[in-house]
């Protein structure tokens, strides 16, 4: 093998001619296409970890519902399906406006971005507001797991169950099982709620930066990534809603 052949086959040939360097491009990337792809794939692999994160809780839920079906039916009557339903509508709507915000970012339309981000943020606050009302009810009903937990069954009609009407101290399912249901309820909706709060922080930051024309926001990818995250939060709720609010059975 001759030396010349070596230097050509093993050579390092520069192609570092960034004549028109995009100001949005970070130093480690060769070009914007590479950077865009990296951001999208990075966000998706992060979402995969989030899926596994919630997945554990879905398994804990499934197993406990399998082990204690009666308790889950009984306990879920404490949740108001209309609160859950309205929250679903709110989140689906916010997903739509977020998708529109991403579209506006791709088209670099400042006004549309601001409008759609505002609606999305308001929806998120609405969601949290309704959740707060629900949590407060649970607190007054002593359904927050822990030292103050005290479960009383309710009947299918919403009032106290026949047994509990006679003796309010008595519940027809074990306290421990009811507590598992409410632990899962609070853990899963709480973790979801934390994600909503993080989403609000991200979207508000973007809103302010777009409002004041921060050079950062000339790159549409930030809104797009916030959008991916927000749709994921929506998907989690799509599963939480039927699992907690819509357990059928007598």
């Amino acid at each position, binding site marked *: 093998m001759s030396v010349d052949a070596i230097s050509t086959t093993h050579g390092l040939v520069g192609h570092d001619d960034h004549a028109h360097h995009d100001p949005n491009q970070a130093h480690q990337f060769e070009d914007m296409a590479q950077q865009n792809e990296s951001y999208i794939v990075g966000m*998706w692999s992060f979402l995969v970890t989030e*899926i596994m994160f919630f997945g554990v809780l879905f398994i804990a839920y499934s197993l406990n519902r399998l082990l204690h079906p009666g308790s889950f039916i009984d306990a879920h009557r404490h949740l108001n399906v209309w609160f859950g339903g309205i929250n679903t509508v709110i989140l689906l709507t916010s*997903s739509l406006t977020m998708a529109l915000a*991403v579209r506006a970012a791709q088209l670099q339309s400042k006004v549309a971005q601001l409008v759609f981000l505002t609606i999305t943020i308001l929806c998120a606050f609405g969601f949290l507001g309704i959740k707060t009302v629900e949590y407060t009810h649970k607190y007054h009903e002593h359904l927050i797991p822990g030292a103050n937990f005290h479960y009383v069954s309710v009947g299918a009609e919403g009032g106290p169950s026949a047994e509990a009407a006679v003796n309010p101290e008595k519940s027809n399912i074990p306290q421990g099982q009811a507590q598992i249901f409410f632990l899962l309820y609070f853990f899963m909706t709480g973790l979801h709620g934390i994600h909503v709060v993080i989403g609000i922080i991200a979207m508000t930051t973007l809103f302010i930066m777009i409002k004041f024309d921060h050079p950062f926001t000339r790159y549409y990818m930030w809104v797009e990534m916030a959008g991916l995250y927000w749709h994921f939060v929506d998907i989690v709720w799509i599963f939480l809603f039927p699992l907690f609010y819509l357990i*059928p059975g007598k």
Partner: protein
Amino acid sequence: MSAEHAETTHQEHSHHVVSVSELFITYGALMGLMLLTIAFAFKDFGAMNNVIAMVIALIKATLVVLFFMQVRKGSKLTMLWAAIGFIWFLLMFGIMSDYFSRAWIPVPGWESPTTNQK
């Protein structure tokens, strides 16, 4: 070469902007499915209730992934990762197979698997 390349891809990406009608149709479908799942929950189909609820939820999630998150137009790599997330989520439900198969026909001598938990 690379700058030029970046410019064209950037342009292409901007041209792939999703249409508004597509988003609204998706939104309508999601709303319809939500009403459907609530309606089904108030009828008693026995064990099928859960299946129906989960199938509807899966359809809704798929709609969000494909249209809102634009995986439909995404690169193969994006599709791969979206799929991996879903597949591994299902794989983890393999844990449940233990609980389902515990009650199967016992083998003589194996009636009571040792219960000591370390």
